């Protein structure tokens, strides 16, 4: 019989250190036996800047690259296009245009992100957006409903479609690929039936039209941006303060401040540029396009859901290991349905944004590349197709990459085929990063 042990057995610690070293050497924190005693990584409270940088580097080396490749890619693309199309790409007019182009992709990708987090796929999201937009436009045109009632009903249609997909996947057990492929085909028929062959439905509401075509008044734009930055800074510093007092793990204050400063500079810079008059004729065209705050609000909501709520935590758990989640008492079926509902509802919003941009709903709305661009955006941004990894902001970064490629190549006057080939290659590159980093993570783990 073993006598109870009061402290760590030095022999065990020694042997375990050797094991840890053999394990691949990537798990650097474990290799240091001194640092391991009593969670040395935690007890120190805030780590120094150097330590934080080291941790971050180790994370990257272990394959956890997040959205870093996409951010770098975005930067490279912007530089390339600025050089290639100096007179057109980096103008305030094009900047606003770019945001509008990215808008519907970002919204769709954010929703699909939830489904991808589970390791599922939603091929029908684009078409669901088309159906939602069609329902909204028809209700406003034929029934004369106010825009918010029509939007609400369209959202409910999306929710119903999401529940249907979710039930088919979780309760019946059909692979999501097949269910959503079937839905992709069938919903195109429904949209055609709603609109009627050959026709397009115009958008009759000024409010809906303004979503993609209107701009915020300049003063309002400044107020909103400054308040947002202030709120972001206050929240981050508050959390830092609270974690410090409880002696919990927290990044150094410098990093937090730097993060706030970078975000503030980017937002203020963009606001400044967008507040200039960018019209070429006599009319005045200025202010932040309404699409930007809309996407911003959705980003904040879904980031909050993913990082701060039990539901979000459970989504990650199901995506990481569905069996473990089930044993932990998480209702996997319910989470699956909820994610498909989020995806479908966001798809409807995206469809409305796209319809607003066209000022009409066509029978092929949401078909074609819409969905594939959104999936590409999520993956390029750093969401894993294998499930369990990804954030709402990935969709924004990836959506911007896609929009920049689309927009930049268009400005260069290149043929359409080049655009498709380049977008395809970028997606392949992003998926490779995902697959390779996943392999690295697998070898880094015990």
């Amino acid at each position: 019989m073993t006598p109870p042990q009061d402290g760590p057995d030095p022999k065990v610690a020694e042997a375990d250190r050797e094991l840890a070293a053999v394990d691949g050497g990537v798990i650097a924190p474990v290799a240091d036996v001194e640092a391991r005693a009593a969670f040395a990584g935690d007890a120190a409270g805030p780590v120094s800047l150097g330590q934080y940088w080291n941790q971050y580097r180790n994370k990257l080396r272990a394959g956890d690259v997040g959205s870093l490749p996409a951010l770098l890619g975005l930067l490279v693309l912007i530089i390339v296009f600025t050089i290639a199309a100096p007179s057109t790409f980096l103008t305030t007019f094009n900047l606003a245009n770019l945001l509008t182009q990215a808008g519907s992709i970002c919204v769709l990708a954010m929703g699909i992100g939830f489904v991808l987090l589970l390791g599922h796929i939603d091929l029908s999201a684009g078409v669901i957006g088309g159906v939602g937009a069609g329902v909204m436009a028809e209700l406003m045109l034929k029934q004369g409903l106010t825009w918010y009632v029509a939007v609400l009903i369209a959202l409910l249609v999306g929710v119903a479609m999401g529940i249907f997909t979710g039930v088919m996947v979780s309760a019946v057990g059909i692979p999501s690929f097949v269910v959503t492929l079937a839905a992709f085909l069938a919903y195109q028929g429904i949209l055609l039936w709603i609109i009627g062959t050959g026709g397009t439905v115009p958008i009759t509401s000024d409010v809906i039209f303004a979503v993609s075509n209107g701009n915020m008044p300049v003063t309002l734009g400044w107020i909103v941006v400054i308040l947002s930055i202030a709120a972001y800074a206050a929240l981050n510093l508050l959390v830092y303060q609270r974690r410090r007092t409880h002696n919990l793990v927290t990044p150094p204050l410098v990093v937090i401040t730097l993060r706030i400063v970078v975000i503030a500079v980017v937002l203020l810079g963009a606001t400044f540029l967008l507040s200039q008059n960018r019209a070429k004729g006599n009319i005045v065209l200025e202010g932040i396009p309404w699409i930007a705050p809309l996407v911003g609000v959705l980003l904040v909501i879904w980031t909050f859901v993913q990082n701060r709520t039990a539901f979000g935590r459970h989504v990650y758990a199901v995506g990481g290991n569905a069996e473990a989640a089930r044993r932990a008492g998480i209702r996997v079926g319910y989470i699956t349905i909820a994610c498909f509902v989020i995806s479908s509802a966001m798809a409807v919003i995206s469809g409305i944004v796209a319809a607003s941009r066209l000022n009409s709903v066509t029978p092929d709305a949401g078909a074609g590349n819409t969905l594939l661009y959104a999936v590409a955006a999520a993956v390029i941004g750093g969401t894993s197709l294998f499930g369990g990894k990804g954030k709402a902001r990935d969709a924004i970064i990836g959506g911007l990459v896609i929009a920049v490629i689309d927009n930049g190549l268009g400005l260069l006057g290149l043929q359409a085929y080049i655009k498709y080939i380049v977008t395809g290659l970028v997606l392949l590159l992003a998926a490779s990063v995902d697959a390779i980093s996943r392999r690295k993570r697998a070898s880094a783990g015990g």
Partner: protein
Amino acid sequence: MTQSTEPILQLRGVDKSFGAVQVLHEVDLSIYPGQVTALVGDNGAGKSTLVKCVAGIYSIDAGDYLFEGKPVQVSNPRDAAALGIEIVYQDLALCDNLDIVQNMFLGREPKSGIVLDEGQMEIKARDTLASLSVRTVSSVRQLVASLSGGQRQTVAIAKSVLWNSKVVMLDEPTAALGVAQTRQVLDLVRRLADNGLGVLLISHNMNDVKEVSDRITALYLGRVAADIPAADVTTGQIVELITSGRSGEHGLAPAIAQESA
């Protein structure tokens, strides 16, 4: 070691059949607080079935289920969890993409309002690991993917004691581990018992069983062949009990052993 008091969990005369096949015959099982009870038996002896009956995954056909001396109804895993019975599964039920804290609280996250209470989780996770003298992880915010097999098992066990549980059942906790890591996990199992929990250890490894357990319950073809203090038997005798149902004065009566075979 600890004097045997009242068993915290007791099964009496439990039968369990799947269709025409009777898997458990009048099984008695007692788990005592502060003791490690080892459940041994060959493949197909009914160990897993028995544990699943205790855990409420299977319902029992006949017999009594007593918890802290009182008869209770355990018809699903939630009933078992409510009584304070936790199971550490063989294939670790952890999510690689979450960190230690997130895994330990998975499915039972404390909240303030609708927001997760990360601070409370982190403090409690650290306290629990410290109370088990676990010092092999540098940060409770490490991703589980970055842990070694032994560390993962440690996290899985720590997760099971987080909820003021009274009985912890471990299914082959050392099956996939190396020598040093097995050592680490066995020490932890011992510490659970020393902290006053009732521990049921299922293992194929006789060395582990002899080393860490206070009592041994041997199953032979769905019957309890012996329920004896670990100190009273040798490793050889345990193996005999497992393979033939009897060993010297221990074990099933020859007639029953024959009949079951």
